[in-house]
């Protein structure tokens, strides 16, 4: 018998073949459709943005591990994931230097100062984005619509002012354009009801839903194509990388909130379905709010977290100062996570043991 090779350790002696790296890899795979969509709509620009973020995030993490004299943790792929989400949530035309600053901030301040993956209270990608918004407000709110889109496709925005009709054949990379959510915001901000109604009518014809669903509108790099994001979300749900609790609670609460507003003032507030598919709501529901590190652990707390995110997003969209509120909604709810976990303490089956 070859006794020298045997070893002992506490049970269980078998394990599920799953690792942090595999969890992260699954999420990255789920983001691939959105990545392809971004590459289709924004061409080379998408590749540049994503590559810049990934490289700078990974290098930052590797450097910090070196400085702290710890084994490198880049193998868990969480830096890659943070980078992709950050890249997906910035305007496509953001200068490369800004991207690097955002990435370094995400990893260094957002994650590594707390002790690396698992110890960060806030979603690193959202923290990086918040930092960029605070530093480069102008660049972070300048949206471009993909210039290479088919002019036959229905557009959002007033007729004659849209991309394809105006700039057809000028060989531009992208054209600065207000996002669908900005139009929504304009309608809400309009002084009179008549003005709001005009904006809504002019900008949102029947094909609006199709536009936001497929993604040829202005917006952040990875957020525009709702279809691709839903595909990725379904993949993760099937793989059980995420549970249904957070996506459903975020989307349902946001939908109900939007529906209430739309119901009472349809001339000011747009169709809730449109709200669902525009902006960062879907990427938030499937990829950002589901970040395991920064959301609560128990199902009940997760549901509350999701509802909080959904309601906050719609609050910011409808009554806040910004057209989109994903970033702040997630960061605010991240801060509530420990509290929610404490609030929803689980009772053991059969009650709390009285033995000390």
């Amino acid at each position, binding site marked *: 018998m070859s006794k020298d090779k045997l070893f002992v350790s506490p049970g269980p*002696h078998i394990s599920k073949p799953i*690792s942090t790296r595999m969890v992260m890899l699954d999420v990255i795979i789920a983001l691939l459709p959105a990545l392809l969509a971004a590459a289709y709509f924004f061409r080379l620009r998408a590749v540049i943005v994503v590559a810049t973020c990934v490289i700078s995030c990974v290098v930052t993490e590797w450097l910090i591990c070196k400085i702290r004299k710890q084994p490198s943790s880049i193998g868990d792929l969480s830096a890659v994931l943070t980078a992709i989400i950050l890249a997906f949530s910035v305007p496509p035309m953001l200068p490369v230097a800004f991207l690097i600053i955002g990435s370094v901030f995400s990893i260094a301040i957002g994650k590594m100062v707390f002790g690396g993956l698992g110890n960060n209270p806030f979603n690193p990608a959202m923290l990086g984005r918040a930092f960029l918004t605070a530093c480069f407000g102008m660049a972070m709110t300048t949206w471009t619509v993909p210039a290479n889109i088919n002019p036959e496709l229905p557009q959002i925005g007033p007729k004659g002012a849209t991309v394809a009709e105006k700039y057809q054949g000028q060989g531009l990379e992208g054209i600065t354009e207000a996002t669908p959510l900005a139009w929504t915001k304009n309608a809400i901000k309009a002084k009179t009801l008549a003005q709001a109604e005009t904006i809504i009518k002019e900008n949102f014809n029947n094909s609006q839903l199709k536009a936001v669903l497929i993604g040829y509108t202005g917006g952040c790099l990875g957020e525009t194509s709702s279809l691709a994001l839903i595909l990725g979300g379904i993949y993760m749900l099937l793989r059980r990388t995420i549970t249904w609790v957070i996506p459903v609670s975020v989307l349902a609460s946001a939908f109900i909130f939007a529906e209430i507003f739309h119901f009472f003032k349809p001339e000011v507030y747009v169709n809730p379905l449109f709200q669902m598919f525009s902006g960062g709501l879907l990427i938030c529901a499937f990829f950002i709010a589901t970040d395991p590190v920064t959301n609560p652990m128990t199902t009940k707390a997760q549901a509350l977290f999701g509802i909080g995110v959904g309601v906050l997003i719609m609050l910011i969209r409808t009554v806040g100062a910004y057209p989109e509120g994903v970033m702040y909604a997630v960061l605010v709810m991240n801060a509530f996570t420990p509290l929610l976990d404490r609030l929803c303490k689980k009772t053991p089956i059969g009650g709390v043991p009285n033995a000390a």
Partner: protein
Amino acid sequence: MSQHIGAPCKPTVAKRQEVKAGDVIGDSDAFVSAKIHSPVDGVVKDIANRSHPVLGRELAVIIDVSEDNTAKLPKPESFESFNLQDYSQEQILEAITTAGIVGMGGAGFPTNVKVAPNEKMPKHTMIVNACECEPYITCDYRVMLEWTKQFIAGVKLIQKASGCKTVHIGIENNKPKAIAAIKEVLSSTSDSESIDVVTLKTKYPQGGERQLINAVMGKVVPTGVIPPMIGLLVCNVATAAATAEAVVLGQALTHRALTVSGKGIKNPGNFYCPIGTSVSDLIDHCGGLTDDAVKVVLGGPMMGFSIADMETPTTKTSGSILVLTKKEIGKANYLARQTNCIKCGRCVGVCPENLIPCDIASSVRARDLDRANRFNMSACMECGCCSYVCPANIEITGLIKTGKILNARNNRK
């Protein structure tokens, strides 16, 4: 000498004394205890400390098997014409005590103490744990299939001795053959009206006492309460079979069915072997280890104990010996790196006791036992599900076990 929960036995034999199979070699005056018998004819070679599967090193009686020892064989045919009316309640209890029967599912609680009617806690329902939920182990399944009549006889005997009105046999739905065999025997023999078979979903840990009661009766056992306190009696398949042997044939508990399995063993199988056989003898009997074997486990892969000494004897509660290969244990390997907890909540989702395992584990790691207790550490039954699913490969169960030991040490001070 420690094969059960309760006071360990004291050797009743001396060095160089001759013993026959079935002779008592260990006994104790304590109430919660069970006799130990020699499984073989032979001479007492030594009385000394030997490796114990769970307790480290314990006192043991080592017997040199004599050459003319005849192997004891199971006699399932003796139960063909079993009639419950032939045995009185006192007779059954007496036989269980004499035979030194203990709960053979793992805990090893002396059966005579468990079964004996108790005025303070009258028992009304008996549940037979036929789940055998841990992977690999199949010895209970073979017992149910091959010794069906003996098993049912044992169930009836225990029912009569304990005074339980109804009996539920809880069995997982991955054993349809055993279910059919049991149902057939029940319908063809007398005194089976109060016994029914409950088919349960196949899942781990279905065979945990509290989980089983919940699954069979839909009843939640309060934390810190043992089943007798609410009138329930849970017993295991092997225990029932051993009881039948003890009462009908008058044989002591000296042999048991046992699974030797795992990819690291050349010829896995189920064996009826003397209690006290060393692990190395059994492994040699099964053709030895393969080249990639890395771990030998006494008990199931989830809750069993890996052993360091191949001369460790099997005990009354050893249901299986597993030899696992590197591939099988996967990341349940002390060499595999543990990464940070990513708070994914997978352990929370799988915990059958509704605990938050990762918080208990992190508290124990920080030596903050108060915090661990606030997360109800003592309610953990150490099933191992949390470690199994952990993507960060944290030994959550191991840490909780450590925490419980530290707790016990603090309480003793």
